[in-house]
C-alpha cells in the first residue's frame, strides 16, 4: 500500500517514541502517506492504522481532526492562504482576490486541469511575514502581494 521508502520514514518516526507507543507516530505516518499518495483515501488511512496496530477509527479520528490532511484529492499544488486578522491587516484580501481571479476558482476548489487547489488557512505562526501562503503544506511564501503571487504561480510547473 505504501512504498518501502515511505515505510522506512514511518519507522524512523516510530523510533522516537517509547516501545509500545507507536500510535504516537500516526500524525507523521499520515503525513508521509499523504506525501506519497497526494491525499488520504479511507483505505490509506486504514493501512496506516493497521501498520501502527491501532483501531482504524482512531486513525480516521486523527485524519479528520487536523486540517492539513487532504481527505479529498487536491491539485498538484495546494495553495493555502492565511486570511486571519494579522494577514488581513497586511493585505491578504487583495492577494486572495488576485489568486481567485487568476486561477478562476474559489476556496476549496481545484482548477479543471488539476494543477491548483486554493484553500483558506488559519494562522501559520508567521504573521510578521504576512500575508503568508503555504504551498503543499511545506513551502511558506512570505509577503504575498498580487505580484508576488504571480511570481509564485509562474514558478510552479
Amino acid at each position, binding site marked *: 500500500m505504501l512504498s518501502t521508502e515511505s515505510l522506512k520514514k514511518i519507522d524512523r518516526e516510530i523510533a*522516537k*517514541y*517509547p516501545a509500545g*507507543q507507536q*500510535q*504516537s*507516530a*500516526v*500524525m*507523521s505516518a*499520515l*503525513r508521509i502517506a499523504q506525501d506519497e499518495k497526494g491525499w488520504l483515501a479511507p483505505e490509506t488511512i486504514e493501512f496506516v492504522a493497521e501498520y*501502527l496496530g*491501532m483501531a482504524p477509527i*482512531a486513525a480516521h*479520528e*486523527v485524519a*479528520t*481532526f*487536523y*486540517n*492539513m*490532511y487532504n481527505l479529498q484529492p487536491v491539485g498538484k499544488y495546494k495553495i*493555502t492562504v492565511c*486570511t*486571519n*486578522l*494579522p494577514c*488581513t*491587516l*497586511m493585505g491578504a484580501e487583495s492577494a486572495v482576490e488576485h489568486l481567485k481571479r487568476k486561477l478562476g476558482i474559489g476556496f476549496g476548489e481545484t482548477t479543471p486541469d488539476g494543477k491548483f487547489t486554493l484553500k483558506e*488557512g*488559519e*494562522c*501559520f*505562526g*508567521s*504573521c*510578521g*511575514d*504576512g500575508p503568508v501562503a*503555504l504551498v503543499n*503544506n*511545506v*513551502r*511558506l511564501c512570505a509577503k504575498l502581494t498580487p505580484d508576488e503571487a504571480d511570481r509564485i504561480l509562474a514558478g510552479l510547473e
Partner: protein
Amino acid sequence: MANEVIFHSIHLPESWKLENYLKVGGYDALKKVLAEKMAPDAIIEQVKASVLRGRGGAGFPTGLKWSFMPKNYSGDKYLVCNSDEGEPGTFKDRDIIRLNPHQLIEGMIIGGYTLGAKAGYNYIHGEIWECYERFEAALDEARAAGLLGKNILGSGWDFDIHAHHGYGAYVCGEETALLESIEGKKGQPRFKPPFPASFGLYGKPTTINNTETLASIPYIVKHGGQKFLELGIPNNGGTKIFSVSGHVNNPGNFEIGMGTPFSELLKMAGGVKNGRKLKAVIPGGSSVPVVPGEIMMDLTMDYDSIAKAGSYLGAGSVIVMDDTVCMVKALERLSYFYFEESCGQCTPCREGTGWLYRVIHRIEHGLGKPEDLDLLESVAGNIMGRTICALGDAAAMPVQGMLKHYRNEFEYHIQHKKCMV
C-alpha cells in the same frame, strides 16, 4: 536591553549551526551543570529567583511549575516543549527554532536534568515545516557532538529529545490537547485535575513549557537568576520577545526588557504604517481584549501593566491597527477563527463560538438587530469559565473587549448597515 538572552547571536551568519552557537558560549550552561553536578533544587532556586514567567501566554512562574514535578518517582518522566504557536499574532517561537535552535535544545537538556526526565519532545506547529527540519538537523548535530543522547558529555546521564510535527489544530497549543496529540489522538484537552505533573504524557509526570521559556534557561543557569530578573522589572523578570504585526512599517520580533514602554516598541517596529493614526492594539495575541491606541501609548510591556488596562500580555503578540480598521470586520475574522478551531468537546464552546460568529457576521453584512449586542455579551459571558480548556475564554474575550471599547461602531453598523470608518 535588546537581544540579550535569546536573540544575542542571530545577526551572525548561520547562527543556527552548532559550531556557531559554541563560538558564542553555547552549551556552557549545560557543561557547568554537569561538571559541577548541580543539584536540581539549586537550579530550580535560580529559575525562581529569575522570576521567569511562562512565555506561552499564561505567565505562570516557571520555577514554581518545575517544583511540582514529583522528585522520588521511580518511573519515566517527560519534558515537553510547546512550539505549537498558532495564536494569531504570535511568531516568536518560529524564529527561536529557525535562528537559535541550540539554545532551546540546551534549555531542554537542562530542564530534563532538573526534572529527572527520561526524554523530551518538542511539538512544532504544522505550517512551519522548514523549522521542523532545521530543529531535527540541530538535534542530529547535538547528538553527534555528545551533547544529547546517551552519556551526555561523559556524565553517565542519558537524555534524548525528539521533534513531533503538528498538522494544523490551534487547540493543540493547549498543553493537555498537545499531550493527547503526541499520543497519536485527536487533540482534545483533558479535564484537570489530574495535572500533567502527576498524569501527563503516557500517564507519566510531565512538565510542559513554551519554547521561549525553555530557551531562557541557559542564560539563567549561566548568569544567575538575579541577572535575568534585572533585565526586566520586579515580578516581570527578563527580556521578552514581542511579535509585532499588522499596521506597522517594520513588522517582526523584538527582544526587549520587560517593562519597556509600548511607544518604544512601536518605534522599533517602524511606527504606524504610512504615518496613519494608531487606533487600537491587541497586545497579547488574538485571544486577549483589545486596547485603544491612546491607552496603549501610556503602557509598558509587562504582565502587570497590560493587566491594569484590562487585557493580557499573553505571548507578547502585538497586533497593531490603524484608523482605517473596522472593528466589526476585525472581530468577525477573529470569531471565525475560534469557531473553526473549537475542538467540539465542550458544548458552550462548540455551540457558542459558532453563535458568536454568525451574529457578528450578520452585523457586518448589514443584517444585525439592535438586540444583537446584548446577545453577543450573553453568549460570550456564558462561554467564559464553562469549558475544559481556555479556548472558550479565548473566543469570548475579544468579543467582550471590542464591545467594551467600540460598542458605538457595532451600533452604527446595525443602524446604518455599513461601516463607520
